[in-house]
């Protein structure tokens, strides 16, 4: 592996003739870059901007606040994926917030809420079947990678007529967010490394449309060091040649048509909707909502919309919005490593195994 990466780094250095700014969309790629120190192997002038591809980072705060409120109810079993349990809601770091109120789901659990960690959404169905007198609420987060599993859960729950299972839906779509970044007046991104796992599900058609509309090269790639380096080399080759094209550097996993079974599930259970992304704001077509036949699984509709906590105070020093948009690096945040650490995160990017701040903190080279 080391030999291949070194070769790719040498080829990259001999290919780059002028400065380029590219974005790796996926937080898994950001972590691989920092984890392996790939940025130390890049030629000067090739600048990486870290993208918003961190599912827990972009989950809208109001959805998380609703989950926190629901988790406090005695009849509710609130379940979600691992990293989501640590993400601070909007009250975290806010001046004047109730110091005892839970600001994340682990805190809600410590305060007596029944909060469970799932590795598969189908576990939520088992929970609902085992506890018919409780309301099981699944906080469903993630990109097109995890959305099909939620769809499968809902299809099975519908077939079984499960009445005590619902979802707080926060699934988001990657391609519209990439487009929104390109439409920003201050955009600096000249090319994208697109996320291989999303490509495995959705195929490459959406990305092809993005290339056509905006004339930027996009290379789909994976998460191992050699995948990231091979993707960067292909992207730089396209930039140097002035060819805004789509390329797939992750052919062993991603096929052009994607995963038809997963796409059919998404089509049956969800409809595309405009959605706020935490840190990025509203994104046209940026998320999924429940299709009419599945709307009775909406937790807010079934259990009533909980009162949402205080708005984040302007006093919070967290700049996670600018970090998720690629406009600032984590180390430029005054709170990084001081007021904000993985033990006491002020923003979601410090939490997740895909968040950029967590990657910079975990794999740093100097004391903060």
């Amino acid at each position, binding site marked *: 592996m080391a030999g291949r990466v070194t070769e790719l780094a040498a080829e990259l250095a001999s290919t780059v003739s002028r400065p380029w700014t590219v974005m790796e969309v996926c937080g898994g790629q950001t972590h691989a870059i920092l984890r392996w*120190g*790939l940025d130390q192997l890049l030629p000067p002038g090739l600048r990486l901007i870290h993208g918003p591809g961190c*599912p*827990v980072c972009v989950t809208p705060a109001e959805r998380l606040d609703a989950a926190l409120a629901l988790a406090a109810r005695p009849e509710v079993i609130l379940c979600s994926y691992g990293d989501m349990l640590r993400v601070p809601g909007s009250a975290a770091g806010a001046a004047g917030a109730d110091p005892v109120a839970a600001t994340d789901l682990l805190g809600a659990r410590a305060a007596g809420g029944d909060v469970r960690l799932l590795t598969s959404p189908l576990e939520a169905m088992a929970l609902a079947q085992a506890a018919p007198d409780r309301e099981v609420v699944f906080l469903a987060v993630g990109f097109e990678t995890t959305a099909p599993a939620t769809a499968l859960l809902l299809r099975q729950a519908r077939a079984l007529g499960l009445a005590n299972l619902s979802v707080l839906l926060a699934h988001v779509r990657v391609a519209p967010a990439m487009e929104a970044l390109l439409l920003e007046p201050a955009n600096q991104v000249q090319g994208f490394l697109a996320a291989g*796992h999303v490509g495995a599900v959705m195929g490459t058609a959406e990305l092809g449309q993005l290339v056509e509309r905006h004339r930027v090269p996009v290379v789909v790639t994976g998460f191992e060091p050699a995948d990231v380096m091979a993707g960067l080399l292909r992207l730089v080759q396209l930039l140097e040649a002035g060819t805004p094209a789509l390329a797939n550097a992750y052919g062993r996993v991603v096929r052009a048509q994607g995963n038809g079974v997963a796409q059919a599930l998404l089509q049956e259970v969800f409809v595309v909707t405009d959605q706020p992304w935490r840190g990025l704001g509203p994104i046209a077509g940026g998320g999924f909502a429940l299709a009419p036949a599945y709307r009775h699984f909406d937790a807010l509709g079934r259990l009533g919309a909980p009162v949402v906590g205080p708005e984040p105070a302007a006093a919070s020093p967290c700049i996670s919005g600018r970090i998720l948009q690629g406009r600032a690096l984590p180390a430029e945040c005054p709170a990084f490593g001081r007021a904000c650490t993985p*033990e006491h995160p002020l923003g979601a990017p410090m939490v997740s195994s895909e968040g950029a701040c967590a990657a910079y903190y975990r794999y740093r080279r100097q004391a903060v």
Partner: protein
Amino acid sequence: MAERIQLAHGGGGTLMQQLIDQELRALYADPAQVLHDAALLQVPPGPLAFSTDGYVVQPLEFPGGNIGSLAVIGTANDLAMAGARALHLSVAMILEEGLPLEVLRRVVAALAAAARQCGLTIVTGDTKVVERGKGDGVFLTTSGIGLVEAPEPIDPRAIRPGDQLLVSGDLGRHGVAILAARHGLDLVPPVLSDCAPLWPQVQALLAAGVRIHCLRDLTRGGLASALQELAVAAGVELAIEEACLPVAEPVARTCELLGFEPLHLANEGRFVAVVPPEAADRARALLAAGGGAWIGTVRPATGAGGRVLLTTALGTERLLIPLSGELLPRIC
């Protein structure tokens, strides 16, 4: 109906006596001991090491062991890290009402088997029962004494720049076994816990005349936390070569899947040894038999205080930071 632990099993009456007679007596090297309030011990002359540890683990039984084997081996291993051979152990149990008796039997059998494996005797104990919902099946606390056989103090303060770092075996197996059991991951083939006594390897080093400056067992927090603790305690920089760290393929693959670092995963049968440079080759040869390896070097601290610097397999450098918070699987 399955037999289960009841509150009265801890109440001091006849049920408790039955529990001790039928289920727990086999733990004791000298069953007559259980009739006495305290154990009377004859220990050989020399300095003693003393250690205590509480054991809470879910699930109680996991691939490669259960809470009983952990509780004996864990405390014996703490003693081994002071260069001491474990001699005697106490075992206090807090049982939850409703615990199936068959689970208790398996835990007790594992306690007894691990005691034999470590060559120690269980000499005193206690049993309490808490109401259903107020425990997690079984909590164990063990305390042990051991006879120090190392000729020089084994202590982080003995670490010097130039010393060499070794690990006693491959990393992360216990962490993966627990995570797999907890999250229902059916790994094929299964990854078994590395739970095992460390004394045989320590004894082999001592018997060969290897000078040891420090030992540290790799438990929760894994190698990353242990190295950080040593670096801070000794005020030195530890320079680690990632390419030299032994990690078995199934452990590495599981970590990649779940977003974990093998260096953050728990171990229950591994230690890091810090030895002076002239002892490194000998130590490496002895530890290699158990899958051990040389992993790095001790350097003088560069800035304020100790730190751990990792050179990746690609030759790039970063700090090795201890795990923060719970290990939670990533999302995608």
